[in-house]
């Protein structure tokens, strides 16, 4: 089943920050990783992704530096900041709350029954 990008858009910040907590990535690497991890359920529009990355940088949640790829040319790598990590934690809590709420609202026989 394909997930519409409208639903996921609000969570892109969190998804990208999560990747950057694990390691520094360059723009296309982020897109490729998300594509690989989500298999066929969701294809992120690269245009959207790059916009979110730029926005995160503008809001100082990530910073960038020019680095060299293990084999290959130079890339602009993005690195999460302390502020970014704090924001991610907030986003994660928000997501957990939302997940519980949606389960309560949309699924039949939940725990309360």
């Amino acid at each position: 089943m394909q997930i519409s990008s409208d639903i996921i858009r609000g969570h892109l910040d969190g998804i990208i920050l999560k990747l950057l907590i694990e390691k520094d990535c360059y723009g296309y690497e982020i897109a490729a990783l998300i594509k690989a991890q989500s298999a066929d359920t969701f294809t992120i529009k690269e245009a959207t992704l790059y916009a979110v990355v730029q926005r995160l940088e503008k809001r100082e949640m990530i910073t960038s530096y020019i680095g060299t790829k293990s084999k290959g040319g130079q890339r602009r790598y993005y690195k999460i900041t302390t502020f970014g990590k704090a924001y991610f934690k907030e986003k994660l809590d928000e997501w957990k709350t939302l997940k519980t709420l949606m389960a309560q609202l949309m699924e039949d026989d939940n725990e309360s029954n």
Partner: protein
Amino acid sequence: MKAIETFVKQLFKRKFRNVEDDDAQAKLIEMLKEKVEDLKESGLDEKEAIHKAIVEFGELDDYYKPFADKEVRRYKRNKTIRHYTNDLLFSLIASALIIGILIFVNLYYIQPDVAGHWFVIPSLGILFWPAALLYKLLNKKGEK
């Protein structure tokens, strides 16, 4: 690689411009070029790689969607701040002029030895004008 630059510049041409676009445009070109490099490393020739990068990019609308509202809000906010700054500057100059006149009148017409330094009281009143504008400006700047 020229193709990537042309592609991105064409995209931005169709949108309303703002100052930050130049930076965004340069970053976008860089990201797409990196992607082309990656694709080339994985075996595609340059032409195919550029084509793939452009096709997979999508529309500029997708690029702007995540922060369309925020962009508009920020633009408006910056405009208001500019206005308030001008207002403040105007009020400061005008207050200085008026206070200057008061001091002049105090010194040469209704003199201190007769009436004391009375200009202080109306001057304090006048200074509320720039103070109020400063308050508004700082409030606006403090908003997110």
